[in-house]
């Protein structure tokens, strides 16, 4: 896999991510987030994980991004100007993130990753993934399905309109 391709896709991920955190127009932030997600799907494809790449597009770009865009559209108040945080908070956060990032990169660069071998470009077949969901990873699988059920019920309960009669309590 050529370095040019990797850096191109990395650019597709990082530059829109910067737009997400720095952009004033939240709709543009949402759209840049989608571009970033598609770039990450390309990374998964490069890492021989086509199933996870398809899931990334389907769930993140197709569902989560839509939820967040809907949330933006429903809570957008055009009368109120977007306010930014203070310079102090911005510089402090930037410093903290740079320190954390530098530390992580330093630790990773110092470790010996070259001893690991790359696996075949075929990737792990989807059937094996399904088997593992029902044998070795059964417990997380069932817990995630329970979590999804709770999310479904909980989100509807939290976000629905209240139909209480005023003056009752």
């Amino acid at each position, binding site marked *: *896999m*050529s*370095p040019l391709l*990797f850096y191109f896709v*990395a650019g597709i991920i*990082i530059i829109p*991510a910067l737009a*997400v*955190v720095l952009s004033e127009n*939240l709709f543009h932030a949402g759209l840049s*987030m989608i571009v*970033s*997600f598609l770039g*990450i799907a390309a990374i*998964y494809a490069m*890492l*021989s*994980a086509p*199933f*996870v790449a398809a899931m*990334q597009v389907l*769930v*993140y770009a197709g*569902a*989560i991004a839509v*939820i*967040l865009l809907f*949330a*933006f559209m*429903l*809570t957008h108040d055009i009368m109120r100007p*977007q*306010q*930014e945080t203070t310079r102090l*908070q911005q510089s402090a*956060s930037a410093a*903290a993130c*740079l320190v*954390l*990032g530098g530390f*992580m*990169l330093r630790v*990773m660069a110092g470790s010996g*990753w070259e001893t690991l*071998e*790359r*696996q075949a470009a075929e990737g*792990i077949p989807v059937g*094996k*993934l399904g088997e593992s969901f029902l044998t*070795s*990873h059964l417990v*997380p699988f069932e817990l*995630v399905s329970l*979590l999804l059920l709770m*999310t*479904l019920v*909980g989100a509807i309960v*939290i*976000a629905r309109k209240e139909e209480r009669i005023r003056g009752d309590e």
Partner: protein
Amino acid sequence: MIGLFHFLGLASVLFCIGLYGVLTRRNAVAVLMSLELMFNAVNINLVAFSHYRPEITGLAFSLFVIAVAACEATVGVALVLSVYRNQKDIDLEHTNTLRW
């Protein structure tokens, strides 16, 4: 040559960008968007390791992370909508009425 370090480096950079967004943004929906970036950084890590050590654990857990991120975004959005309905304002600097 592109090795594991490049993918992990990409994930770290993305994580830190997301962290900056979470710490800095005032709109709740913007914070949720930056949070999704952090989830994705973790996922890149998992999938990269699964490529370099042919085990199924990385891929399986990355799918679980995707599912959990979907749940978290949904409930987060429901909460944001609920707050908006009550206070008409989702600026995080103003939603501090429990703290006196």
